[in-house]
């Protein structure tokens, strides 16, 4: 809906932290998906007081749209600085939409080892799922026009905000 204000990303993050705090133990490994998910994972890591350093994933090598659109430019290096084998993991992403990114992320994680469990935290769930994937924790579920995209931004003071961007055509597979 045009004109409807977007929620405040910092407030959503606080809501997410409150939901996660009682359920995330100190041995949990947090893994952020590039790029918004990495920013969120860093903040969650700090505020939840987790000991193990954060991991980061760039799922470009596992995406199912490679055949259609090729390799994404500016691929980042995935970096998991802890043993995945047998560990409870939390994947962190900014926007949960079709679920395809999460599918790719899970496939990549299993190439590092067999985790004890994988849970998912997302700042926003905008619906529109194309795969049977759900998040354990979301900051908020909001409806967004399918012709629009929503992305997380971070300013120099590390403050997070949400922004809409127009799409030239509906991105339906």
């Amino acid at each position, binding site marked *: 809906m045009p004109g409807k204000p977007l929620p405040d990303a910092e407030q959503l993050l606080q809501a997410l932290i409150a939901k996660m705090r009682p359920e995330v133990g100190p041995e949990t490994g947090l893994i952020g998906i590039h790029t918004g998910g990495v920013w969120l994972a860093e903040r969650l890591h700090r505020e939840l007081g987790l000991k193990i350093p954060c991991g980061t994933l760039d799922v470009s*090598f596992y995406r199912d749209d490679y055949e259609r659109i090729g390799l994404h430019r500016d*691929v980042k290096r995935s970096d998991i600085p802890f043993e995945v084998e047998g560990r409870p993991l939390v994947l962190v992403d900014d926007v949960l939409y079709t679920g395809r990114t999460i599918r790719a992320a899970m496939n990549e994680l299993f190439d590092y080892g067999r985790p004890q469990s994988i849970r998912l935290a997302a700042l926003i769930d905008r619906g529109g799922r194309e795969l049977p994937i759900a998040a354990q924790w979301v900051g908020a579920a909001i409806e967004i026009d399918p012709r629009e995209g929503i992305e997380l931004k971070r300013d120099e003071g590390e403050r997070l905000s949400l922004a809409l961007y127009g799409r030239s055509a509906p991105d339906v597979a």
Partner: protein
Amino acid sequence: MWLDPSNPQLNRNGELHHLLSLEGLPASILWQILDTAKSFAGVTEREVKKVPLLRGKAVFNLFFEPSTRTRTTFEIAAKRLSADVINLAINISSQTKGETVLDTVANLAAMQADMFVVRHGASGAPYLIAKHVAPEIHVINAGDGRHAHPTQGLLDMFTIRHYKHDFSGLRVAIIGDILHSRVARSHINALTTLGCPEIRVIAPKTLLPSNAESLGVHVYHDMRQGLKDVDVVMALRLQNERMQGALLASAQEFFKYYGLTEEKLELAKPDAIVLHPGPMNRGVEIDSSVADGRQSVIMPQVTFGIAIRMAVMSILAGN
């Protein structure tokens, strides 16, 4: 025609469709390959060293000239991308070369090839193949005659960037048989495009192309002058198999004047790195004590070659 007529490596969107030479490729494409290779270097450190990008694709290694390192690293790279790899070592009869090459390729294309990796003794052979394949097939030049060896050039750029981080302040010396070297040509093209301010070539007159200076490099005939204060030393293999007639008195003589020894290397910066594309002629262009010394990055070059070839194949197959 789906390719850019002025540069048959690029499609109409300016994306890389074949990799034939580094000449004429924009810096943005070189950086994209180097950045992507950095991400693939991470993959090769994992428990499972494979990603599914090229699952179901068939990569044909077509080697009309012998090679161990290049062919093997292309094979490993393709396998780590989950492609099926078919290796072909082909002997050609010199009379019917052109016809044979295109016939071979047409037959392999009929077997549903998605990508050809081509090594050939004749300069331009990969271009000929690229011109005749169907639009969905990609061709990678793995070394053609004296012309180009783009993935070697790229992996050397990756190696330099890994140790020196940036090209903008670098002084690079390329030593030896520039005339016969497809690697040197790829180096000069890539270093220039990536903004390296000073490229030197050090060689006897008989092993330099007559137009060397027009390539934008500084020419030296004396190792002691040429190596002074350089950051990167790239030794080249003396290519006896490509030499016709007497270009050199002897290998011993070459070593005396142009062999890279510890004593000559001391003239370079103390943190200078030494590269060699292999295979090395120890005691001809490089002394064993340098090849195995603390400044040598020759073995890391080989490892980085896998990540570079993964990057090139995955970018091409996606375009």
